[in-house]
Each structure stands twice: as structure tokens, then as C-alpha cells.
């Protein structure tokens, strides 16, 4: 009781009384630390990684965690070799390192991870992106993984950043979009310095050549076909970081919104028949005001104002302001960041996600920040290398910054990069995993989000893609009807809980749930118990 009083005295709780509390390594037993390979040469890959994932690799119903590390590359030879890390959830708030047993250590210069069951065998697989060829690990279903990259044909050499699983042709199989960053090798590292510092700092990506991102079509037999050219994706070389698959025009085809650094962002409109058209300029999401490209990094999509249309979010670098693109329909967006803009004026954003942290039914927004240049403080006033996390509460039509009242962790600063969202303790509110560049990660437990009621859905597709990306969930509780599109990817270099938690607010029962699967199948659920996770099988409905 005494400690609670102290907590209340230090942190006036936000209106809904929800805070995020760090689960320290001593408690979680997650002792892994990211090594960013920081060097005097300031090789650019050092500063942009890495990602993390909430993933239930052993199908025990509890989220495990995966972290991506740096590793061997043309400019870095760590001794002993560095490893990515897979920690199994022990169901009691602790985790056990199972990396070696699972065979997912990698050892390459890692960037991100995208988890999904690409082969539909019921076990989640891992696609790890690297500076260098990527790796696809197929889950063997027995706690181990097999590197199937070569067979699958998804190595995508070069420098890949985010990977996004989605089904662009609605054939029920998960396809793969891989964001490509710049053309880079150690010989491509120009001397970036100034008279004041007289040492290198990380070069701005403007100096490097763009590369086209890749789209792989899933052939359904463990192999993929690179359709980057025929789909039109390769027509737009970029410097791509974040990507999210969403449906911006409600035509049932998943589009792609891709953030580019120092170049215009891309909005790839899915035209059907395997073709995409890049419409970023006309849509108003490519440039900042005045036609200046910004430094897009993390992205996400959600219908934040409940008008039935997917809105977009991009985090940029300091002084550029982050963008909240409201979908005005007819493929036109308007940047309406509201309170997010002044709060992010001096920040550089990476991991970010719309999710309902307080289970009141609407998507809120969590931002992970950190400047890419470790020497920025010597060069630009007020901009810090390590930056705070931010939490914004959805107020219906905009967002309110509630960071100051949402836990002590928001008063600290990090070199934040990746961010994953998931309910690791299965208590019905969504927790957050943050991966920091050159630092230990942060596991943040949501305390109080489950004061509101909720229903958790574990969607099991039978005809649609295994991740149910593109499914539209509509639920009604307490007289309020809400709709959510299940997007693919989002955030930065990271992968999230595959389940959907539907916030009910104070409603004590849920009136209805409808799932419109990407296949067109519609399942309607009645009499669903609240404050529980339920399995929903496509075409069958609730699996009791």
C-alpha cells in the first residue's frame, strides 16, 4: 500500500489510470543486449538497427520474444560472433534463452524480423532482414527452425530493413514485401564530418543511392517468385525503412505504404492482377509541405477516427515533425498531426504502433524515438541522441500526449529503434517490447489496460492467408460499433502479437463480433465471453 501511494505521488496517473512499467532483466531474465558495432568509421548500418518481435514460436499460447543483433559484415567481424536471441516465455513473467536450441542465432548484420506462418502449417516462421542477404527460418514445429532461404528464394541481397507479410493477390498465401535501403558497402562510406567535430559522424542517407524494394509472391510450395518488376514495385527505387500493408481505398486489396528516408514516401496502390501503382504524390503522403522529402522511418496504419478509412502515420527526423495522414477518401490524405507535432518537434521516430492500450475501443499511439547520430548533441541545439518514448491517447478525432502520466519509463531516454506490441502476460492488455540501438531492450508491462473489458481473438484462417492480414473485424458493445482492419507489418523492423484484442470500455458484454475474412467469408460470433481469448476459425466461427 505504501509503495502504491508513493507511485501515485510521483506519477499522477493519466485519466484512465494505465501505466507502462518496465520489467527489468533481473525479473524477466532477458539479459541479451544489442551490440550496434559502433565504430570510429561510423558505418551507416551501425545506427539503424535493430528490430524485435513478439512471437509464439512453440504454440503454447504465450508470446515469446525475438531480438535481432548486429553480426559479421564487410566492415565488422565480432569475436566471439554475436547472436540474435529467442527467449521462450515461461508463463510466469520470466523468459529462457532458447536461441541455440532453436537454431535462430543468425550471426549476420541484422536489421529486422517479420514473423508469420508463411507455409500455413500452423507454426510461425521467422524472416530476418540483414545488411547482407536475409534469412527465412521455417518453424519445424518442435522448437527448432530450419534455414530455408535458398529454397524459398527470398535472400534479397543488399541492405534490407523492414519486411512485411501480406497477401497482395488474395490467393490465401502470405506474400512478402522487403524494404530496401540504400546501396551500401564499406567502400561507400564517405567522410562526413565538420570543422567543429573533426571526427566522423553518421552520414545522412541523402548521400547514398536508392535501391528498389522487393516483392515476393508465395508459390504455396515453399518457394517464392520475385515479382518486384512485373508488379511495378521495382519501378520506384527508394531508401525504404518502415512499411505497412493496409487497404487505403477499401477495395479489398492490400496496398503498401512505405516510408523513405530523405526521399518521397511511396504509397503503392494495389490495382489487382498483381500490379501496383505508386501514387504518393497525388495522395499527398510523399512529401512534406513545400515538396521537401522528409526522413521517413517508422510507419503504421489504422482508422484512428472511426470513419471507416485507413489513416497513415510516419515518424520523421527532428525538426521535420511526424505525419498523421488523415484519409480524406478518394485516395487523398491530409497531414493532421495535431498534438503529435509539437511533441515530436525535436525527436526522431522509429518504432511506432497504433493500438488500444486502455481497451476503450479506439487505437492509441505509442512512439519509440532516438536520433541516429550519436554526436548530434554537439551539432544541433536541443536535439538529443537518446530520446523519450511517447504515448498518445486517442480522443476521438485526434491524439493527446499522455506520456507524462503513463509511467516512469516515459521520463527516461533511449536510443530506441524497434518496437513490438503484444500481450505477453495474457492479461488482456497489450504490452510493449522496445529494442534499443547498442543497449539492452525494454519490456514494458501494461498495468491497468485490462480495467476495461476486452475480448481477445485468435484468428485461424482456413481459406485466407494464415495471418488473416486484410481481415475486417467489427464489434459492438455498450451501443458502440467499431471496426478494425487487420494490417500487415507496421512499426519499424518488428513484428507483433498475431492476436487481436478488442477493447470494450466499461461494457460488460459484447453484443456482436463479425469477421470478414480476406477470402470473403464472414463469421458472426454471438455470446462471446468477455475478458478471454477465443479462437475463431474461418468459416466455422468461434471454436469453443
Amino acid at each position, binding site marked *: 500500500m505504501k509503495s502504491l501511494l508513493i507511485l501515485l505521488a510521483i506519477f499522477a496517473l493519466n485519466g484512465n489510470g494505465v501505466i507502462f512499467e518496465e520489467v527489468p532483466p533481473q525479473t524477466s531474465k532477458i539479459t541479451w543486449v544489442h551490440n550496434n558495432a559502433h565504430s570510429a568509421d561510423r558505418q551507416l548500418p551501425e545506427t539503424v538497427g535493430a528490430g524485435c518481435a513478439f512471437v509464439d514460436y512453440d504454440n503454447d499460447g504465450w508470446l515469446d520474444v525475438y531480438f535481432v543483433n548486429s553480426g559479421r559484415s564487410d566492415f565488422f567481424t565480432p569475436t566471439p560472433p554475436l547472436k540474435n536471441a529467442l527467449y521462450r516465455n515461461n508463463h510466469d513473467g520470466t523468459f529462457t534463452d532458447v536461441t541455440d536450441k532453436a537454431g535462430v542465432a543468425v550471426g549476420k548484420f541484422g536489421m529486422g524480423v517479420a514473423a508469420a506462418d508463411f507455409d500455413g502449417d500452423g507454426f510461425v516462421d521467422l524472416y530476418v532482414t540483414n545488411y547482407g542477404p536475409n534469412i527465412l527460418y521455417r518453424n519445424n514445429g518442435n522448437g527448432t527452425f530450419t534455414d530455408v532461404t535458398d529454397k524459398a528464394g527470398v535472400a534479397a541481397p543488399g541492405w534490407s530493413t523492414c519486411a512485411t507479410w501480406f497477401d497482395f493477390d488474395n490467393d490465401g498465401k502470405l506474400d512478402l514485401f522487403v524494404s530496401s535501403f540504400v546501396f551500401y558497402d564499406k567502400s561507400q562510406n564517405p567522410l562526413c564530418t565538420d570543422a567543429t567535430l573533426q571526427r566522423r559522424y553518421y552520414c545522412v542517407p541523402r548521400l547514398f543511392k536508392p535501391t528498389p524494394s522487393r516483392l515476393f509472391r508465395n508459390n504455396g510450395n515453399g518457394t517464392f517468385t520475385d515479382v518486384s518488376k512485373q508488379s511495378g514495385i521495382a519501378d520506384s527505387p527508394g531508401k525504404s525503412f518502415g512499411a505497412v500493408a493496409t487497404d487505403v481505398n477499401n477495395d479489398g486489396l492490400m496496398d503498401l505504404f512505405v516510408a523513405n528516408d530523405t526521399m518521397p514516401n511511396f504509397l503503392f496502390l494495389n490495382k489487382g492482377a498483381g500490379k501496383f501503382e505508386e*501514387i504518393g*504524390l*497525388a495522395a*499527398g503522403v510523399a*512529401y*512534406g*509541405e*513545400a*515538396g*521537401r522529402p522528409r526522413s521517413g522511418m517508422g510507419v503504421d496504419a489504422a482508422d484512428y477516427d472511426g470513419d471507416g478509412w485507413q489513416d497513415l502515420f510516419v515518424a520523421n527526423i527532428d*525538426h521535420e*515533425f511526424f505525419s498523421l495522414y488523415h484519409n480524406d477518401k478518394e485516395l*487523398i490524405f*491530409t497531414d*493532421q*498531426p495535431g498534438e503529435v*507535432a*509539437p511533441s515530436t*518537434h525535436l525527436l526522431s521516430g522509429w518504432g511506432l504502433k497504433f493500438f488500444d492500450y486502455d481497451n476503450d475501443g479506439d487505437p492509441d499511439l505509442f512512439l519509440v524515438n532516438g536520433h541516429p547520430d550519436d554526436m548530434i548533441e554537439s551539432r544541433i*541545439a*536541443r536535439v538529443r541522441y537518446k530520446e523519450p518514448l511517447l504515448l498518445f491517447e486517442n480522443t476521438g478525432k485526434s491524439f493527446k500526449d499522455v506520456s507524462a502520466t503513463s509511467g516512469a519509463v516515459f521520463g527516461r531516454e533511449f536510443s530506441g529503434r524497434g518496437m513490438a506490441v503484444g500481450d505477453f502476460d495474457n492479461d488482456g492488455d497489450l504490452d510493449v517490447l522496445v529494442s534499443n540501438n547498442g543497449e539492452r531492450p525494454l519490456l514494458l508491462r501494461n498495468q491497468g489496460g485490462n480495467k476495461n473489458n476486452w475480448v481477445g481473438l485468435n484468428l485461424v484462417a482456413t481459406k485466407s492467408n494464415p495471418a488473416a492480414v486484410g481481415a475486417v473485424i467489427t464489434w459492438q458493445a455498450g451501443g458502440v460499433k467499431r471496426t478494425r482492419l487487420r494490417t500487415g507489418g507496421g512499426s519499424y523492423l518488428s513484428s507483433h502479437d498475431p492476436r487481436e484484442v478488442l477493447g470494450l470500455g466499461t461494457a460488460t458484454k459484447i453484443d456482436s463480433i463479425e469477421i470478414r475474412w480476406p477470402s470473403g467469408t464472414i463469421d458472426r460470433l454471438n455470446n462471446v465471453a468477455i475478458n478471454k481469448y477465443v479462437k475463431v476459425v474461418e468459416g466455422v466461427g468461434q471454436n469453443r
Partner: protein
Amino acid sequence: MVCALVFVQFAVAQDVARLERVATLIRENKTVEAERQLATILHSKPNEPVGLNLLGTIRAKQGRLDEAEALFVRAVVNDPRYSGARMNLAYVYLQKREPAKAVVQLTEVLTIDPANAEAKVVLGDAYLANGNPDDAEKQYLDALDGRLDNAGALLGLAQISRLKGELKEVALYLNRIGTLTANSDSPEFLYKVATLALQAGMFDAAKASLENALKLRPDEPAYLLALGIAWLRKGDLFEAEKIFRHLLQLQPTSEQAQIHLGYVLLNQKKYDEARLWLEKSARSASPMPEVFYYLGLVAQEQNDDAKAIALFEKAVQKLPNYPHARIALGSSYIKLRNYPRAKEELETAVKLDPEEPTAHYNLALLYARLKDPARAQEEMKIVEKLKAKGGSDGVVVLPPNSSPRNP
């Protein structure tokens, strides 16, 4: 006879001592006492040139320039070789924006005292104010006499270089002036240097001069306004905000401070507070067109397009050749999907300022929406070209005269 001579000499010495005391009082800003003592002196000797000059100085300090002028003229009439009074008269003429009259007095001073470097510098200033930079340059160079130790002459030369568009030279002069005036005790001069530095885009130099000027004359509104503008031009909105807020504490009704604070907050996307300050500024007797433009931008950002358009129209009514207001109108019409009106406004904007990238970007956006990708790309190429040339960000621009406002 000897006694009489001694008495006269004693009386003269006594007068000189009294006048020196008065001069000291004026320097110490004890003008009431100085004026009381001068009244006694001038009562017995109404045409005493030094006394008239000192009283003129008090009047000039009080801003009563016409009375000051009359007193200096009387001093000069009574002693035509009194170069100090002529210098003061010249200063008054310069303050009254009558540089031709100043030139006459300063020419006389230099006839009396050909080596007077100060007179040469002020004559240069008078020529410059009179639109005669060549004669001004000659005076400044004469004042320097081959040495780079006269800050006033260097400032004059810097101003001439700026008029000629020789910014490198301006920078060189200002750097030298910065060294010479690091310990200057003249806030007016430092302010003058800062003004020039601001105009030349040397914001750090301007800032340094203004900070020194403010040490000598803390809370001087003109200096604070200029310092805020210097921070703004340096791109530090937070420091600029602090300065303008401080200025508004001192002068809550300052239209300049209100519009600048509104502008800073607009750039920080703090729209609600920006609107408050801009609306205050708009309530002044003769609001500037920029106020309506900025208020329009706030309305645009807050999704009130009808209000935004009305405000931009008001800005354009006041200043028809206001390209940024036209661009903003075009942008609002794009948002409202009124593409013909958007095109009209944006094309007008391009005619007014072909080098403004924002106009071309909005045209690109418009053509992209009109499904004319070729023209959209053409416009984007222009944007790229202009940006490579170092064109403005165009996000929000300072008033169209694009110089700090009356610092």
C-alpha cells in the same frame, strides 16, 4: 587693468568649469539638474554657444528634435567654427531624415577640422542616407586612412557592399567590426551592426552584437525584437519564442512582438496559441497583410478551409502581389478539390515569384490529382532545381519584404 584681466580670466575659467559640470551631468543622465544649471548660465549669457549646444543635447536626448535643432543652429550662428555643435546638428538632421542638411553641416566641420574621422564617417552615413553611395564610400575610406580600426567606417563600407550584393565583403567587414566592437560601449552602434548583419544573413554576428547591446541597455524593445528575429532566422524557434515572450511582457501591445510570436508558434505547430497572438495583432489599427496570411495558415491546419480562404483573400486584398498568400489559396482549393481555382491561384503565384518551390510543388500535386503525371513531374523537377539553388523551405515564410520587420 591687470586686476580686471585676472577677473575676466577667472570668470571665464569659472564658466568653463560650470559648463564642464553640466556636460558631466548630461553624460550621467542627470538632465534635470543639468538643465537647472544651464538655465542659470544662459540667463546671464543667452547666446553662450557651449551652453546652447548642451541644452540642444538634452533636448535631442528627450526626442524633442525641433527644439534641439533650433538650439544647435543658435550655437553655430554664435560660433560658426564650433564643430561640436555642427556635428550635433548633423546628427539631428540624420534623425529627422534630412541627410542633405546633414551633409552641409558635416562638410563645414571638415573644412574646420579636415582630420576629423568621426565627421567623415557621419558624412558617409549622410551621403548613404541621401542615396549617394559613391561619395559615402570615399568618406569611409578617408576615415579609415588605410587602417582597419574605425568600426563606423567599416560598417558604412559593409552597408555599401550589401547594396552591391557583395555578401562576402559584408561578412569580412562585419567580422572585423565584431573584433573591434567586442567591448563597445555604444548600444546604438552595436544595434546598427546587428541590423546590417541580419540583412546580410549573418545571424550569429547579429545575435552577438544584440546580446552586447542588451548588456548595455537591458530590455530595450528594439534590440529584443531584433534578437528574436536573429534567433528565428538561425532556425532556433525555441530561443526566438523566449525572446518574443519576454518582449511581450515588457510591451504587451507590441504588434511586432505579437506577430513574431504568432509566427514562431505557427512554425512549432502550436496552432491554438499562435492564433491567439496573431488575432491580437490583427486587432491593431492597421494590421499587416502577413497577419491574415498566418491566421489563414492556422485555419488551414485546423481544417477550417472556408475561414482559411477568407483570411488569405484578406491578405491578398491588402497586398495583391503576395505570392505566399496566393500559394496558400491554391493549396486550400486543392484541399477542397476545386482544381480550377487552385490552378488559377497557383499560376498567379508562379508569375509573382517563379522561384518559390512551394508554388511548383502545389502545382505538381494539382497535376498529379488531375491525372497528368508528366506535368506533375515537370513541376517536381522545378522544385528540385530550385531547392538545389537553395530556395526557401516555403513551409511558412516571413513577410514578403523578406527582411526583419523594423528592427
